[in-house]
């Protein structure tokens, strides 16, 4: 069984280590799929439907084919294909061309003539749910309610001394990865090489092979670098398949990267969430009931599930009845902690409202109602809110929190809010890695994972170097290639828990094979050896040994190649954390400025402290976007996206960034734990609660725009509904 070295004995693991690819990324020499250039390469462009719902009567690509510089043109929809001849959202792919320049491809796309029979469309949830709405989707516009429940909600409601009721909602958020989806495809005979902007090289390979009807062994997917995905690049992507078909038809390599507009329209989003909630406590402030009617839209034909109450607090009686609503908009995809920020916002807002109803401190209400400890009487290692809430409260100065509504005169109101998160990302037991030691001392770790910006490449090298007792620079981490052993897609915060144990096992195996070669030369058993500080030596007598290079020379001409399988015991499942927000709201302009976010997050056994902290900071900043700025806006008449760009789809910028205070709770005994998603879950809920604490009026909908704040205040002044 593999194990981690003792904490006191770690040269790299747990330290702050700079990314290995920092120099390549800062110099602009890192090659992303978007940057790949092949000899004779053509440029592909897609034609997307301008209509949100239409039947394709015909597609005429003949003029495009004859246009200057065009080498291939494809109709992507067969008008005779019945239901499959319909497009169900703006931007859905209809045709494609490849030409010698991007400009020529752009021109040629305009020459494609498509005869659309425009069909009635649904642009909003309300339109879709109307009884008289045209049925646009094969299974109906709204799914039947699915129910989850525990305890007895009716009894709970009868028993509750205090009840709050409200409708809470969150918006559709697009991933807005900076590198758009797409890739470069090049055929050599029957073999396809695809440079893809992906979070999952192996599943991209499988998807492309299936769609093209070619053997998986004939497709090689490469992703040396990729410019962000956040869940939207986990599946196989249609545009890469189109790119491969164009390349085949043209007999040349083709690059097809989506435009920014296409990226917003067709590559996924976080579905909207609506919840009509009735929740109550007993007279002493013990939660008794949570009853929710929920719905949301993941666009055309995709679900929009999220689970409330969010499982941080204990409601003995709860029920959720959920319906998915379909509209004519781009389908949802996994988005960093799918369902969690929505569920967290709904639940944490309700918690604050209950606290106000009880006239107690919302933190106090939370502490009284956390999920109970397990049978041993202790909170499990991955559910430590009882410890983290007071830590973060101390850091933000919670003791100075005023009751809801800042009574300070003047337009600037300050407020504090908090929220918690939970996430379960386990390692994938099927992960493989292969470690090679060459006779000249070179070490290469090959693993078919990918670095989506989290620092996976650095982590692979760190664990390998740690195991071999070598400096980081003297090992190679080879990733982002389907020719390397299988590793899962980078989603669900599983990467670190899959990759780290497997790399450790492979490195230990290779190192032990080297020990077996060296032991006779030193006259000891292989188990008596250690690899440390660039030497292989006898553990009990470190002076007795040789340099790493000399040890490897003993291999003669035969390198070591050891394949490692994932092992249990080196990683753990799940993490928990809390976030607190301090905000300032100008009640004249409605503008919210977040002053400070405090984050306390369980990080398990930290591999690279520097990148782990960056992950938390990044998650928080994405959470700020969800809280205050980001919103996919569809025109309610045309179902066209109004802001498919980066000008009016607002992301946080440098001036929006508050002070961010991250405390990583290092629990080395737990093994490694995924950290990609949890830090983005609770930011929006904490910010929204802080806004309410500042302005004294409940904010029940995201994003908390100036307009939302001003109208909430207006409603309150007018006698309101609250």
């Amino acid at each position: 069984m593999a194990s981690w070295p003792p904490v006191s004995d770690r040269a790299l693991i747990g330290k702050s280590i700079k990314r290995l690819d920092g120099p390549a990324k800062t110099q602009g020499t890192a090659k992303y799929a978007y940057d790949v250039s092949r000899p004779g390469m053509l440029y592909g462009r897609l034609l997307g439907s301008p209509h949100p719902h239409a039947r394709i009567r015909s597609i005429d690509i003949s003029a495009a084919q004859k246009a200057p510089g065009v080498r291939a043109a494809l109709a992507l929809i067969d008008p005779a294909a019945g239901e499959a001849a319909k497009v169900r959202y703006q931007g859905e792919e209809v045709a494609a061309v490849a030409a010698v320049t991007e400009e020529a491809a752009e021109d040629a796309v305009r020459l494609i003539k498509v005869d659309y029979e425009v069909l009635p469309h649904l642009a909003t949830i309300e339109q879709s749910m109307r009884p008289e709405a045209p049925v646009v989707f094969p299974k109906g516009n709204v799914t039947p309610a699915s129910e989850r429940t525990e305890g007895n909600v009716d009894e709970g409601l009868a028993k509750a001394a205090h009840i709050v009721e409200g409708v809470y909602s969150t918006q559709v958020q697009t991933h807005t990865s900076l590198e758009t989806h797409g890739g470069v495809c090049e055929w050599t005979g029957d073999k396809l090489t695809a440079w893809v902007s992906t979070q999952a090289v192996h599943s991209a390979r499988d998807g492309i092979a299936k769609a093209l009807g070619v053997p998986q062994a004939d497709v090689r997917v490469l992703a040396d670098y990729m410019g962000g995905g956040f869940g939207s690049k986990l599946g196989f992507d249609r545009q890469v398949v189109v790119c491969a078909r164009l390349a085949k038809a043209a007999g040349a390599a083709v690059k097809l990267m989506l435009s920014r507009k296409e990226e917003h329209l067709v590559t996924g989003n976080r579905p909207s969430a609506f919840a009509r909630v009735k929740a109550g406590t007993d007279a002493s402030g013990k939660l008794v009931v949570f009853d929710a009617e929920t719905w949301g839209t993941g666009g055309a034909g995709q679900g929009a599930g999220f689970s409330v109450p969010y499982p941080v607090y204990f409601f003995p009686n709860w029920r959720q009845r959920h319906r998915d609503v379909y509209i004519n908009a781009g389908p949802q995809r996994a988005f960093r902690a799918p369902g969690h920020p929505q569920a967290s916002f709904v639940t944490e807002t309700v918690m604050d409202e209950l606290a106000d109803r009880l006239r107690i401190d919302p933190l106090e209400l939370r502490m009284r109602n956390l999920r109970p400890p397990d049978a041993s009487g202790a909170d499990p290692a991955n559910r430590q809110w009882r410890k983290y809430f007071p830590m973060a409260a101390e850091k933000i100065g919670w003791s100075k929190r005023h009751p809801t509504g800042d009574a300070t005169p003047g337009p600037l109101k300050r407020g504090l809010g908090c929220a918690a998160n939970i996430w379960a990302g386990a390692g994938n037991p099927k992960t493989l890695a292969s470690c090679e030691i060459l006779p000249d001392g070179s070490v290469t770790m090959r693993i078919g994972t990918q670095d989506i910006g989290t620092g996976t490449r650095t982590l692979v090298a760190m664990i390998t170097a740690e195991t071999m007792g070598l400096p980081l620079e003297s090992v190679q981490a080879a990733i982002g290639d389907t020719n390397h052993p299988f590793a899962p897609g980078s989603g669900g915060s599983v990467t670190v828990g899959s990759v780290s144990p497997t790399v450790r096992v492979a490195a230990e195996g290779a190192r032990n094979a080297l020990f077996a070669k060296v032991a006779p030369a030193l006259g000891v058993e292989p188990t008596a050896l250690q690899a440390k500080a660039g030497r292989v030596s006898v553990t009990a007598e470190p002076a007795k040994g040789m340099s790493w290079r000399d040890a490897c020379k003993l291999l003669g001409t035969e390198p070591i190649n050891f394949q490692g399988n994932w092992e249990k015991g080196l990683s753990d499942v799940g993490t928990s954390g809390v976030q607190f927000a301090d905000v300032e709201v100008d009640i004249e302009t409605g503008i919210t400025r977040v002053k400070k976010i405090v984050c306390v997050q369980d990080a398990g056994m930290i591999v690279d402290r520097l990148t782990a902290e960056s992950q938390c900071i990044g998650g928080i900043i994405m959470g700020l976007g969800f809280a205050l700025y980001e919103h996919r806006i569809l025109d309610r008449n045309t179902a066209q996206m109004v802001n498919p760009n980066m000008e009016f789809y607002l992301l946080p910028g440098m001036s929006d960034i508050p002070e961010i205070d991250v405390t990583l709770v290092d629990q080395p005994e737990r093994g490694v734990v995924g950290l990609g998603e949890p830090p983005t879950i609770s930011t929006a809920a904490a910010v929204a609660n802080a806004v309410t604490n500042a302005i004294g009026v409940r904010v029940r909908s995201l994003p908390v725009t100036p307009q939302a704040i001003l109208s909430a205040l207006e409603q309150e002044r007018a006698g309101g509904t609250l």
Partner: protein
Amino acid sequence: MPSKKKSEPGFSRRTFLKTVGAGGVAAGVIGPPATAEAQAGALGPGPVPVQLNVNGRVHKLELEPRVTLLDAIRNRLNLTGVKRVCDRGSCGACTMIADGRTIYSCSVLAIDMQGKAIRTVESFTSGTVLHPVQQAFCEKDGLMCGFCTPGFVTSAVALLERNPKPTPEQARKALDGNICRCGTYVRVLEAALAPRAASGARGQREVPEGSAGGATERERAGVGPREQLREAVRRG
């Protein structure tokens, strides 16, 4: 920029052009002879000769006049450090330096940039030694997926060339035209300020606190472009 009289020493044709500040004139005067006749009418739509001075090397290209500087440099010169992200001047991933000022290269035409000294992220390293800004980005972890990084590095280099000791507020404003989706801002700011601390002893000109120093227009306005934009959006 203070305009220099012709009699003053140091006058050059480039200074004249910069002072006039008209890209069209630049194209006409410095551009290859073929553009002279076209100057009377419209250029293109077919390819025309375009000469670009990129990272100290002059490149003679045949480009359609509609080709942006970004696309010319990425697709024709294969300098792919600068990225295409929003393609309409709102994210800064394509930031280059032209005659000392940062530009969004996705939003200028290559043909209009003739005669200007264009610098891309590829030009900052001397030999194998990283520029102090690049070094600081690596050390502070001012990057994650890295797709915005070249733009941020370029903006930070340009800032420090104009103002070697920016205050955090000046640095924030200078970098406000760049967008990062991974959320590296905190550490990007630290990285942009780190070379300032390191170079503090060099005795370069000081810029008083509160002044934007050799500021760009957006800095002089006192508000970052995104703030301005956001306010405009909010006001409807």
